[in-house]
């Protein structure tokens, strides 16, 4: 049975043109820059100094507090110092710069390709390994995984949900991981189950990736308590709350965390990283990035070291094609345009999408005719046109009353708007402002 969530959503052209490109390692050269803050929460504390020699996988910045994550070196070489480096959006943040010299890994990391099926580790051991490895949610939000797995007192986890929906157009890195590292992934799921003491796990995959569903189903026979769920291809199927609704039929209440429903959602790449961290002792220092676009000659799914300059990814696909209008980090629905092509990749980078000239620009803005297409498309049951107007006028109290906090910024409203109104732009702005108001202590 194909499952889905019932309210809202859109289905943009899938454009998964890089689906046949196998995962490929990309080893950086020259200088790499690793941001100290690669996650939501407190920035890590740098523990290396200028001139230090580091190995691949060595801890270079330590988590500062509970909601924070360790950062490891992704290459071996010499530390050049900590500098303020501009990220994709040109915003400067402190980063550790390392001159790459060879690729010498930490001895503790198991580099063999053999699959480690040993599931004897206890829950505490698994959680400790995950914390140690600096794991963060690789779906884009980069929330530290060990925090997510720490079930709050009074709540009980009932199931693990693995998000294999990959509902954004163009992206294929999760799909490739499911195909190529299916068994590792399933072991990762078993580890997650053990970590939070549940015996049920679901992997939700959209039916446009039927071969991934079939291959995982075949492998899952050997692992108990894992159910592969076919999902309708619809955006935002992979949204945390939508996914829980689709798979379990339970709605996450307003202003509540997913744990209220007893579900813990994890991304495909994060789950693979869990496997690597626990079974192979490998910290999170590389992630899969799709490099794709209609005007590119080659479509690639790279495994990229964290901190690799974007320019090296561009070089690997043969430069920026002439008729490129926009380059997006992440999927075209939620991703953001990149303004600085020298920026280094981060743990949460999932894709680099090239959009052609004629598709890059927004249409001419006109007036809202109250057609309510945005209301129909909103998966969170909000009224985007109203929130847009309120945010434009900076009416924060009203925004609060109209539940702006619930917006997941998926962009469905903007996608359907016939008047090309910059709905998400303003809603996002209004949300930031109104959240400050809500967070204010009385």
């Amino acid at each position: 049975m194909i499952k889905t969530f019932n309210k809202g959503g859109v289905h943009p052209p899938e454009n998964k043109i890089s689906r046949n490109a196998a995962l490929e390692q990309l080893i950086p050269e020259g200088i790499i820059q690793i941001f100290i803050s690669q996650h939501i929460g407190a920035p890590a504390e740098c523990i290396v100094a200028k001139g230090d020699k580091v190995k691949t996988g060595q801890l270079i910045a330590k988590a500062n507090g509970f909601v924070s994550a360790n950062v490891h070196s992704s290459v071996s070489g010499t530390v050049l110092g900590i500098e303020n480096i501009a990220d994709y959006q040109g915003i400067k943040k402190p980063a550790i710069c390392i001159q790459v010299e060879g690729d010498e890994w930490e001895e503790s990391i198991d580099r063999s390709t053999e699959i480690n099926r040993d599931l004897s580790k206890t829950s505490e051991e698994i959680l400790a390994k995950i914390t140690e490895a600096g794991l963060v949610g690789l779906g884009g939000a980069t929330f530290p995984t060990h925090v997510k797995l720490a079930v709050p007192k009074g709540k009980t986890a009932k199931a693990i949900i693995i998000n294999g929906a990959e509902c954004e157009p163009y992206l294929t890195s999760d799909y490739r991981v499911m195909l190529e590292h299916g068994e590792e992934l399933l072991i990762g799921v078993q580890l997650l189950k053990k970590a939070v003491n549940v015996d049920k796990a679901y992997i939700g995959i959209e039916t446009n990736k039927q071969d991934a569903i079939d291959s995982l189903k075949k492998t899952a026979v050997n692992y108990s308590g894992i159910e592969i769920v076919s999902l309708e291809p619809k955006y935002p199927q992979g949204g945390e709350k939508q996914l829980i609704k689709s798979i379990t039929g339970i709605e996450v209440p307003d202003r509540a965390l997913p744990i209220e429903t007893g579900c813990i959602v994890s991304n495909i790449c994060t789950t693979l990283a869990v496997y690597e961290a626990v079974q192979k002792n490998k910290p999170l220092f590389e992630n899969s990035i799709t490099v794709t676009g209609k005007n590119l000659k080659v479509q690639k799914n790279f495994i990229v070291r964290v901190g690799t300059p974007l320019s090296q990814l561009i070089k690997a696909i043969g430069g920026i094609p002439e008729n490129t209008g926009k380059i997006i980090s992440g999927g075209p629905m939620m991703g953001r345009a990149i303004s600085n092509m020298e920026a280094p990749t981060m743990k949460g980078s999932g894709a680099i999408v090239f959009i052609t000239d004629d598709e890059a620009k927004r249409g001419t803005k006109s007036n809202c005719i109250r057609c309510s297409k945005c209301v129909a498309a909103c998966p969170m049951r909000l009224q985007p046109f109203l929130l847009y107007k309120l945010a434009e006028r900076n009416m924060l109290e009203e925004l609060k009353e109209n539940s702006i906090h619930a917006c997941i910024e998926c962009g469905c409203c903007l996608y359907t708007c016939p008047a090309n109104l910059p709905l998400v732009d303003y809603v996002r702005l209004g949300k930031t402002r109104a959240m400050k108001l809500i967070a204010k202590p009385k």
Partner: protein
Amino acid sequence: MDSTILTTVIMLGILAAILAAVLYMVAQRFKVVEDERIDGTESILPGANCGGCGYTGCRAFAEALVKTDDISVMFCPVGGNAAMTKIAEYLGKKVEAKDNEIAVVRCAGSCENRQRVNEFDGATSCAVMAATYSGDTNCSYGCLGKGDCVSVCNFGAIYINGETMLPEIDEDKCTACGSCTKACPKLIIELRKKGPKSRRIYVSCINKDKGAVARKACKVACIGCAACRKACTFESIVIENFLAYIDPNKCRLCRKCVEACPTESIIELNFPPRKPKVEIQEQKTDNASSEIEQNKIVL
């Protein structure tokens, strides 16, 4: 028939009288006694409701003025000293005269001075743009030019110059209410002392990057070279984070810093033109004489 009309009239008449009496009693019982001076004060205030005083509008400010004993820290930037002295007289309280202020735009990164490196396709709003990324130039501090300051100004005193794409202030209209300073997400606009005869000098840049980086992004960026601080005889210039700031309270408007600045990022406003330098005069006379010679030849 007659009796029906009569009864109706009498009944309604009595009812009206009773209700009138009740209404009168209620009105007396729940009378709101408002200080008459609030109305008086409000009539002196300009009625712009701009919020420049820090209150929600002129009425709220008038109320605050009447209720507060010490009003020396309160000020209406639109009415200025004139309105405040009038109010002080009316209320019998003391006010202190304040220097007139005016908004200044501390960015000179026009299209010519500061190259655009990308194009922003989102909503036409500085706030949205600033929340999205660092901006369409290599300077992450400078003006975004989408006009949030223009749309909040109640007095039509600020507009975007079509050529430079930077906001400019209409000195006659600006009341220094401060709405634009709050609307600017990059905090470029500052309220400064208007100065004698509206003459003022300020650093028209807020770039805190190192000199080389700032200069690469914009021709007229402050590079923090401290040449102005050396030139200043009144110690009115401080340099912090590779950025100079002229303290308007110490500045004596001598204009030495303007001459010293290698990037022309210090701006002087409303000064009479400088005396032309001697060298230039000589050149001019040379040109003049050669012209006369040419004329002679022609003749």
